[in-house]
Structure formats: structure tokens, C-alpha cells
């Protein structure tokens, strides 16, 4: 490999989240609470990508997430690639799937929704027949995944 291409160091053990749209990078960071982690994390921002033009990538050393944690990523960037690394080898590749129910992740856009006025968890369902749309369990307002804000 040419020296100029080696932008991000290899990982011994941990999780690689690749093909993150660059404008979604910091949402992914927040969603997985990476700022609270003590292990080393490499973040690549605006890297060149054959597939996407530009992409971002996160390498988290010594951390393996549950499927539930990883599926939250579908809310902000459904097309990420996940690689589980053990001993410098990719031992598993995963896709993320939008869960049918999202609890405590997405904020309801309706200011008059009870969830924005009471100390409680938000709760959304996916909507049958409408891809990329979530419906608030409480106020029934629908929100497009492209416009969601995280809690």
C-alpha cells in the first residue's frame, strides 16, 4: 500500500463503522456515546471513497456493540458498513436494520407532544408501507428519517 493512502491505522480488536456519510458523522458519535469511551478511537472525516465520493469512518478499539446499539445507527445512516475486528482480521460484517420500535433515541418534532413536556422516554414506530417514516407512539405525528433529531 502506498504511504499516502494509509490514512487510518489498522485495528487489533474492535469495531469499524465505515461508509458513514460525512454530514452524519457527529450524529453517529453522539448516538453511540463515543465521547464517553476510554479506549482509543480513530475518526476519519471526509475521506475519499469510490462508492460515495466522500465518506467518514470510525474505528473503535476494544469495543463490541450489541445489535440493539448498532441498529440505532439506521436512524441516522442506514447504509453504514460494520466490521468486527479480532486480531487484525475482519471476523464479521454486519448491516444495520431500522428496528420496528425506537425507544429513547429520536426526539418528537411536535412541541405539544407529551414526550417533550414530561420526564419520559420517547417512543416511535416504523410506519407500514412508508419507508423511512417514523410515527410517534404518543402524539401520532409522523417524521421523516431525513429530518429526525436525536434525543
Amino acid at each position, binding site marked *: 500500500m502506498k504511504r499516502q493512502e494509509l490514512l487510518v491505522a489498522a485495528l487489533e480488536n474492535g469495531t469499524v463503522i465505515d461508509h458513514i456519510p460525512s454530514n452524519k458523522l457527529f450524529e453517529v458519535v453522539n448516538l453511540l456515546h463515543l465521547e464517553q469511551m476510554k479506549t482509543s478511537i480513530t475518526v476519519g472525516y471526509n475521506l475519499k471513497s469510490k462508492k460515495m465520493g466522500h465518506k467518514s469512518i470510525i474505528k473503535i478499539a476494544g469495543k463490541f456493540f450489541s445489535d440493539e446499539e448498532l441498529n440505532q445507527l439506521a436512524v441516522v445512516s442506514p447504509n453504514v458498513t460494520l466490521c468486527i475486528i479480532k486480531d487484525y482480521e475482519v471476523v464479521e460484517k454486519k448491516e444495520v436494520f431500522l428496528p420496528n420500535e425506537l425507544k429513547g433515541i429520536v426526539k418528537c418534532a411536535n412541541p*405539544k407532544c*407529551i414526550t417533550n413536556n414530561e*420526564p419520559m422516554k420517547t417512543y416511535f414506530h416504523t410506519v407500514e408501507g412508508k419507508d423511512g417514516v417514523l410515527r410517534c407512539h404518543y402524539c401520532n405525528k409522523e417524521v421523516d428519517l431525513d429530518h429526525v433529531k436525536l434525543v
Partner: protein
Amino acid sequence: MENRSLVTIADHSKEKIMYLIRMAEEFEKHTNRKLLEGKVVATLFFEPSTRTRLSFETAANRLGARVIGFTDPKVTSSTKGETLKDTIMMVSNYADLIVMRHYLEGAARYASEVSPVPIINAGDGANQHPSQTMLDIYSIYKTQGTLDDLNIYMVGDLKYGRTVHSLLMAMRHFNPTFHFIAPEELKMPDVYKQYCDIHHIKYVEHTDFTADTIADADILYMTRVQKERFTDLMEYERVKDLYLLKLPMLKRAKDNMRILHPLPRVNEIEYAIDDDPHAYYFEQARNGLFARQALICDALGITLDDVTNDHTIID
């Protein structure tokens, strides 16, 4: 324990709706009973709504229940910062059933999840108002003798009108044809038109409101066009008088056609129409009493059999 709360009527099956109509019919035959003697019903109105509260309290009182509650949120602890959950938990120690009205959307759903006693939603913001829907459906059934295959015309504010949205969803089982008559700014939102498409409900949209447009109506459901709903006040001035129902507009109406209105009315139905046989809005409000008696009993686990074989009838 099964959650017997009533948050929305949109999820009710056709059978459940017909069951509640049968129950309301029983209460219309014999309104005064001691069926709920010994029960306490709480009415918590976090937002004032005099006619809904009076209707619920009358329904409970005429069945022998005692009623506690508040009518003005200013006197309650919610102004001191108490959460809804705390208020519900406190009141559920005292009452067998909580009827609640709240200005926040989803409040009743949340209350029904935390409350150990059943909740009846008496309106949560712009979201749901199932007892209004139940009395609307009961009124339609009473005046038409059926709920099936009716031409239902909805007029006025179809964008923010919570009652028209709930009615639309609850009628999906009965093969209605809807006609939506509204100004451009207040027309039926796409989400409800998609709902119609998904459930194969026929609908036609109109912006004009004349004797000809409503000639085929079985039900004319009027709502108020409110000034505060408009972003463009010029537009309001232009359309405000276009959606008023005047007596001459009824000259081609079918004999069975009835005019409904959730009330309060301001000027959208001319007062001269009150004496016309098509007018039904005051009887409609009266039907609310029987519909709410049915909803209260259903939430308390009292069945149609219990109501038909009731030996506590007073009158």
C-alpha cells in the same frame, strides 16, 4: 390486568363500534340507573372544556357514580411543576376511572400506560377525542338507520379539525364516500388522504360549497373556520363567508340528510336552520350523554349483557 382505557377509537373494530352503539341505545332507553353505585369517577381537566366535562359528569351521575376532579388546571399542582404521571398516580388511589382532558398530545396514551385504573381520553390537544367520535357515529347511526354506504360531507376546517380526522378513521369499516369541502389553506391533510387510499375509502375534494355540491349528502358535518388558523389573513377574509351554511342551500338536500356540528357554533350555520328538519346538532350533543355512558361502562368492564339485564334502572 387488561388495560381497558380508551385513548383513541381509530383502532376499534367494526364489531366493537357496533357493540358500543348497542350499549348507547340501551342507555338512551333508560338513562337513569344505579349501575355505578359505589364507584368514583375522576374528571381531570388540565384544559377547560365545559361541555365535554358536563356531558361526562352527567353520564356518570345518572348511572349512580360519584364524581371528583378539577375543572381548572390553575388550581392543581401541575402549575407547581408536578408531572402528569404524579397527578395520575395520586388520583388513581381515589378513583375507579379517570376521565382526562389535556392540552398536550399523547397525554392520554401516556397516562393509560402509567395508571393502574382505566383512563378515558376526553381530548388530548389536536390529537384524539374519542368520545366525540363515538357520539358522532351514534348520531349518524340513529339518523340514517345504518352506518354503511353513506355520503358524508365534511365542511370547513379539515386541516386542524380533530373531530373530522377521528370520524374519518372510525368510519373506515363502513364503506363511506367522503366529500371534503374546504378552503385551500384548510384542506384535508395528505396524511388522511393517504389513509383513505390505503383503506380504499372513496373521497372527493371540493372548494365550492353550494346547494348543488351538497345535494347528495346523507350527512353534512360542519366545522368552524377559525381566523387564528390562517397564516395569510387576506386569505381568511376572502374565504370566511364561503363556508357558511344558509337555509336556501338546503333546497336540494335529500330528506334523510342531517346536519352535524361538534359545537360550539359561531356563525357557520345560519340560525334560521335551527328549526329546519335537517338540523341535528343539538340532538347530536344530547347523544353524547348516552355514548359517554357506554364508554364509561365499557372502561369499567361492564358488558352489554350487564346493561341489558340491569335491575338498577330508576325511571
